[in-house]
């Protein structure tokens, strides 16, 4: 799509508006993706914090309530606060030590950060384009206006000479 170069100055206002609409749509798509990424990142960061809290020495043998369903809790006790079950995807869970689990989530967060930066760059670029197109639309409108007013003047002149 972007490999195709279009000379914006040669497009009429309608075409320019269509191009701008397409750009705005893409922009929206990327903004949504960015939001989804930062939400996912938030979840992973939360996991890291939880592991850090639970694995603290004073929390060994700590009592807690375990959710058996969304509305039913069972009293429990942390037997081993150094081992965690980590969801590695597609329904598989793996036992990891606190450090390994934190590393696992940290890697995910780093990856998401990298992707966020990429998307932010794309958004910046697209916004720039969108602004340029908007400026072109304005110029095209001015040009059209000038042409029309000239025609009007011409017609008025003709009317007065006749």
């Amino acid at each position: 799509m972007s490999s195709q170069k279009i000379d914006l100055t040669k497009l009429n206002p309608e075409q320019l508006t269509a191009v701008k609409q397409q750009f705005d749509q893409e922009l929206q798509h990327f903004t949504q993706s960015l939001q989804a990424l930062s939400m996912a990142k938030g979840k992973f960061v939360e996991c890291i914090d939880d592991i850090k809290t639970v694995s603290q020495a004073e929390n060994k043998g700590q009592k807690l309530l375990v959710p058996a369903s969304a509305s039913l809790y069972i009293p429990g006790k942390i037997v081993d606060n150094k081992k965690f079950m980590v969801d590695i995807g597609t329904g598989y869970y793996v036992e990891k030590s606190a450090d390994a689990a934190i590393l696992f989530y940290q890697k995910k967060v780093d990856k998401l950060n990298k992707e966020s930066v990429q998307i932010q760059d794309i958004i910046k670029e697209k916004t720039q384009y969108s602004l340029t197109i908007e400026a072109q639309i304005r110029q095209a409108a001015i040009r059209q206006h000038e042409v029309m007013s000239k025609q009007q003047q011409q017609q008025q002149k003709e009317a007065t000479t006749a």
Partner: protein
Amino acid sequence: MSELGAKYQHLQSELEEFIVARQKLETQLQENKIVNEEFDQLKEETPVYKLTGNVLLPVEQSEARGNVEKRLEFIETEIKRCEKNIRGKQEELEQVRNELVKLNNAATAAGPDR
């Protein structure tokens, strides 16, 4: 002319469906790849569990590995099949588009004569 146009639109929506399916497969492929990488880093004695319904059931590591590998294979063949479908639909679309352009040109050429 309008019949051909309807056919064109129909083909277009079919192509879109294939593309959505292809994207879904890609997400599945990526997720399974990540799981596979995780499995590769596991120690032999590390227990693996599978979430079934609301319960974690212990599974053999080798079984889990085999499962994910099989799934990866399956997804890859699905992707190939899907891409073949997409290519086929694109060719079909191209044909109909050419016909449409031809008809359109013929109509505009015949237009001024009338």
